[in-house]
């Protein structure tokens, strides 16, 4: 069970239809979706069209079919560490931050709550009934060890259990001490599913797993010293995620199956692009 960390990505099954409203699309061939964050001097860049993107799949240029901002409803999964090392004040901050994040969701969005110590527990499945999640947040108590890797896996699976763009926020104050699943296995799974992970690590302990998982899914690890400003952190992640482009293409000129390296650029612009580094194709 040696634990290495690999890159990640996402792929979408051929027959899956994305979302009810907004720019929905479906396809009989494998479509690859990539969540992309574009910034220029630290500021989000908006107004880009499909033709502005250049996507290389294993080095082969692809035709981008779609590039959308904001319109697609979100599946936001909160996976919150409630192990015994968190104190009452931190839990209070966590509950408030979770509630604040829910305030930022639209009626078409869905959210789910997962808490973890050594016990991985679903507080709420994906739902648009945010009051249900608020109620579950209030029930949160602390105890036990930390099954960070198990919870991250469960969070990804919940995130991809419904159509839409999936964001998984994994909050932890420590390192994994009790998971059954290995980091290797979960990172490998992340390469096969369609969820962007943002890790939020508080304190001085840094879980390398959070960093690797975030990077591999095209997300980001946010490191904070205390939970005092967790409200702003969670809300900032949501706002940033809404500003990401969802681009899609049907792979051409590449061999199906195995690992596909992805390079995503914006033509003729000196911008910073954050996207998953590749994906594992099942076909």
């Amino acid at each position, binding site marked *: *069970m040696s634990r290495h960390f690999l890159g990640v990505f996402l792929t979408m099954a051929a027959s899956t239809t994305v979302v009810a409203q907004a720019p929905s699309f479906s396809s009989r061939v494998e479509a690859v979706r990539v969540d992309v964050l574009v910034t220029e001097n630290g500021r989000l860049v908006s107004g880009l069209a499909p033709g502005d993107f250049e996507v290389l799949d294993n080095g082969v240029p692809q035709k981008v079919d779609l590039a959308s901002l904001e319109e697609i409803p979100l599946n936001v999964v909160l996976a919150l560490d409630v192990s015994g090392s968190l104190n009452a004040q931190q839990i209070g901050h966590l509950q408030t931050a979770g509630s604040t994040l829910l305030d930022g969701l639209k009626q078409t969005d869905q959210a789910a709550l997962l808490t973890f110590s050594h016990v991985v527990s*679903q507080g709420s499945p994906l739902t648009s009934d945010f009051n249900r999640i608020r109620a579950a947040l209030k029930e949160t108590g602390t105890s036990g060890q930390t099954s960070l890797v198990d919870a991250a896996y469960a969070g990804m699976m919940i995130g991809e259990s419904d159509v839409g763009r999936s964001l998984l926020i994994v909050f932890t104050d420590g390192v994994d001490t009790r998971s059954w699943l290995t980091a290797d296995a979960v990172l490998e799974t992340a390469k096969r599913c369609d969820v962007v992970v943002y890790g939020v690590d508080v304190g001085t302990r840094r879980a390398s797993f959070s960093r690797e998982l975030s990077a591999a899914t095209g997300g980001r690890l946010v490191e904070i010293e205390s939970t005092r400003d967790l409200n702003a952190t969670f809300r900032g992640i949501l706002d940033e995620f809404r500003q990401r482009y969802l681009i899609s293409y049907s792979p051409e000129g590449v061999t199906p199956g195995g690992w596909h390296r992805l390079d995503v650029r914006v033509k003729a612009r000196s911008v910073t692009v954050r996207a998953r580094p590749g994906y594992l194709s099942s076909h």
Partner: protein
Amino acid sequence: MSGQRALIACLIACTTVAFAQNARPDDPALVGMLRWLEVAQLHTPGEADVPATEIGRWSRIALVVLAGDIRKLATFLQRAREGSLGPLPTIQLYNRRFTLVEIEKVFHGNDTLKKGAVLHADIAVLVVDDASRRSGFFEDASVFMVDDGRRSGVRYESAHWQIGRALLDGITPSPGADAGALLWYRAASSCLLRDGHLAESRVHLDRARQLFPNSSHFLLDSAYLHQKFSSDTIQAAVEDLRSARANPDVGSRRMELERAERFFRQTLALEPAAAGARIRLGHTLGELGRHEEAASELRRAIDARLDGPDLYFAELFLGYEEQTLGKPGEAKRHYENAAELYPRAQSPWLALSQLARQSGDRAGALGALRSVTALPPDASDRWDPWWDYYEVHRDDAERLLDQMRDLALTEVR
């Protein structure tokens, strides 16, 4: 019984007075040693009685000095009885010189040493206000408390296990040939592991293996200990401690796994039917990346007709090894077996979900995950043996302590 104890107390008191008149024991260490010799005889094994409470108030340094003095007495007694000290042997203790007759009145060789060792074990286990836990003279007496992979405090380990071992080292002809010493070491080992005193366990087991090299008990306990040192919890805590410039005596994960493997193999060489040891050997080999060997050991363990958590572990671990070896069908079967044994344990369902997702079966992955998300939130309603795998539960600790105490009483009688 009470009359007998009163008589012993009277004899000791009279002897002590005579001894004190001769020695004028104004040196605190000598006074302490005499008092210890007295109360060690008065202690009732298994009770936090007045003698245990009194000695429990001694500082760590006082106890270490005492152990050295008692060892001097033991050596003197042995050599005097062998005749190697001449016809009228004497011993200088602090500012006084004592004859063999005077020493024999208060110190009864192996009996006193073993009774003393039981007294100190009882203090370590039963006396809440053990002063040696509050103070340290030597830097290495301090231990770190760790929880969930991080340091949670510093304290001093009880000195009484160390003192017990020091006393038993004085047994003649050899503590390694003494049944009482063996029982004391086994009981202590069991208590230390049960209560999570890992630093003390390491020292204790190192000495136990020296004294009793052919005892499978200490080899197995050593294997448990080093396997625990290899766990994520301990390795994370060690990393945390090293970042604070502390240097706990724990090796790298691989090093600890290799030590565990060695001890599990030695245990199995002496006890081939020890299925628990074989399961853990299999798991250790898997952790070391030797998956074929791991699977072989785990299959052999399952063939031994296990039940309960042992069977659960064997199935779960073998599932993982089969998955790693590229046999998803076999892996699924073993994970399902584990899930059947403990349907409310989350680990087999997570394993089944991940196995399905790995093969592209998204529906299967979600189905297995639902078995986790549908579980009640309270850990007590959904126990997973995996959570406690690295906790060394020693249900035999109290039984061994009782046996040790009974033996001490029998030998004294």
